């Protein structure tokens, strides 16, 4: 920046350097600069959003159904191994008419969400401490990363022995699956906070807990939200594993138990329906809860283009 000015030597000062015209009308000039440089923000029209983001998945689903039906018509395997889409649909109707569908889904979803919230309450302070306390970090971070790659089904046998066949055992498996993801996400988010924000916060007087609340946590939010999303995926997976393995009539009937029961009844349409419902719930929670939160977090910081 200083280059041209510090080496300028010509004595005649009549020729003003470019951009030295501030004295005349600073407000007007400033307003012009702002108008030229400011980034206009626009929202995509609804039809564009629909065509871009709703149409492609519908086409993909239609394609899968068509291939599936084609395989059934071609009789590639026995009827009881591959029921037609219509029979799975009939199983769904049947479940709905018996009034059980919502109960089953809700049993699992409420377990999953409650377990996730508890995991949130444990994982967040844990992540904060691991990120900020050097000794704890060195001790706990590798364990957290390791736990993240451990399939949570592995926790089902020991928790069955510790807790017995009950809801507490389900929640324990969920926690063991989700807490490491949430804590790790927060640690990664905090590690990525630019030091400049922390210094700016300190000059504004945000130290200690106030600094964590006003600067550190909001700055780490993108990584944290990514961790939450992964934490939910792990919570849901762990719960399904627990429900399938540890099914018992004493426990409320959830999606995992439903799937396992249909297997015992050799009802392949019901088994497929169970899988679709598990998939559907996972996707629905992701789309209804996490995707909007993530989009809002990224967009409000200018980290994601609109209209994509």
């Amino acid at each position, binding site marked *: 920046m200083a280059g041209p000015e510090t080496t300028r030597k010509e004595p005649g000062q009549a020729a003003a350097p470019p951009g030295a015209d501030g004295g005349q009308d600073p407000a007007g000039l400033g307003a012009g600069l702002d108008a*030229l440089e400011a980034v206009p923000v626009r929202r995509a029209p609804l039809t564009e959003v629909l065509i871009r983001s709703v149409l492609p998945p519908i086409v993909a689903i239609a394609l899968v159904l068509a291939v599936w039906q084609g395989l059934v018509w071609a009789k590639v395997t026995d009827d009881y191994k591959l029921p037609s889409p219509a029979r799975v649909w009939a199983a769904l109707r049947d479940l709905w008419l018996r009034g059980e569908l919502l109960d089953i889904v809700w049993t699992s979803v409420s377990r999953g969400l409650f377990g996730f919230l508890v995991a949130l309450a444990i994982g967040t302070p844990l992540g904060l401490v691991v990120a900020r306390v050097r000794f704890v970090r060195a001790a706990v971070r590798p364990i957290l990363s390791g736990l993240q790659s451990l399939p949570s089904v592995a926790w089902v046998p020991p928790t069955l022995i510790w807790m017995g066949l009950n809801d507490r055992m389900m929640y324990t498996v969920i926690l063991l699956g989700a807490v490491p993801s949430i804590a790790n996400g927060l640690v990664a988010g905090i590690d990525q906070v630019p030091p400049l*924000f922390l210094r700016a916060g300190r000059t504004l007087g945000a130290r200690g807990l106030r600094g964590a609340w006003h600067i550190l946590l909001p700055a780490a939010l993108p990584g944290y939200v990514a961790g939450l999303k992964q934490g939910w995926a792990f919570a849901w997976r762990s719960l399904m594993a627990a429900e399938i393995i540890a099914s018992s009539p004493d426990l409320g009937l959830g999606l995992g138990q439903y799937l396992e029961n249909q297997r015992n009844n050799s009802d392949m349409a019901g088994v497929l329906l169970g899988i679709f419902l598990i998939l559907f719930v996972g996707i629905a929670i992701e789309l209804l809860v996490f995707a909007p939160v993530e989009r809002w977090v990224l967009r409000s910081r200018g980290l994601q283009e609109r209209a994509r």
Partner: protein
Amino acid sequence: MSPALTTAKNAPTGRGPARAVPAVRIGRVHKVFGRPGAPGQAVLDDITLDVRPGEFVCLLGASGCGKSTLLNLIAGLDRPTAGEIDVPGGRPALMFQEHALFPWLTAGRNVELALRLRKVPRARRRPEAERLLELVRLGGAHGRRVHELSGGMRQRVAMARALAQASDVLLMDEPFAALDAITRDVLHGELTRIWRETGVSVVFVTHNVREAVRLAQRVVLLSSRPGRVIREWTVDLPQPRRAEDPAVADLSREITEELRGEIRRHGRT
């Protein structure tokens, strides 16, 4: 240590007689980075400098001479290895070369956060933030997101946020270095106006001689490796100044010569 020379003596600053208590007192400050066992080269060596209340001082020096280090010490973000730094009015406000605005808050909320951390009651924050944005000519930008603003606007919001701290002292670390020439020139005018309206003491760091002469009442030239005060100039020119004023250009040339000599000295060894 070379004594500080004053070229243009006892110029009236236009801000009343210098009072007994300086806004910033820097006494024989040394700074060495590195561990106690393995100290590195001295970055700052025996810096002594007082800033009078309401004064506008520019610290000038080549890149890497320790200007940011000195500013961080005054801001309390780091501690001197030896010597004393006293800011009687309390924690100074600091503006960085990068705007350092928090992207998760709107422009207005950034200003309000500074007020909140200063424990201004909730009801008074919004109008106060509006007033400060008005002061930097950004009235109406309260709800704008940081990424929607131009570079010049961001630095002005950063200035409003720094002013929201209501410190007696405003430290500025090359705040306009990343801006284009025209924007920078406009912001020089705005800064001079705001300084005169608020009466805040400003310590402005730059490696740009013309910027220093345009803005300051006093220009302090630092040497490099180690950073020492090698010379001071009192700039006795009326504000608002323009970069192309002959007097500004003349003094700039003189200071540039001195700075060049200092830089050349390092090439010889």
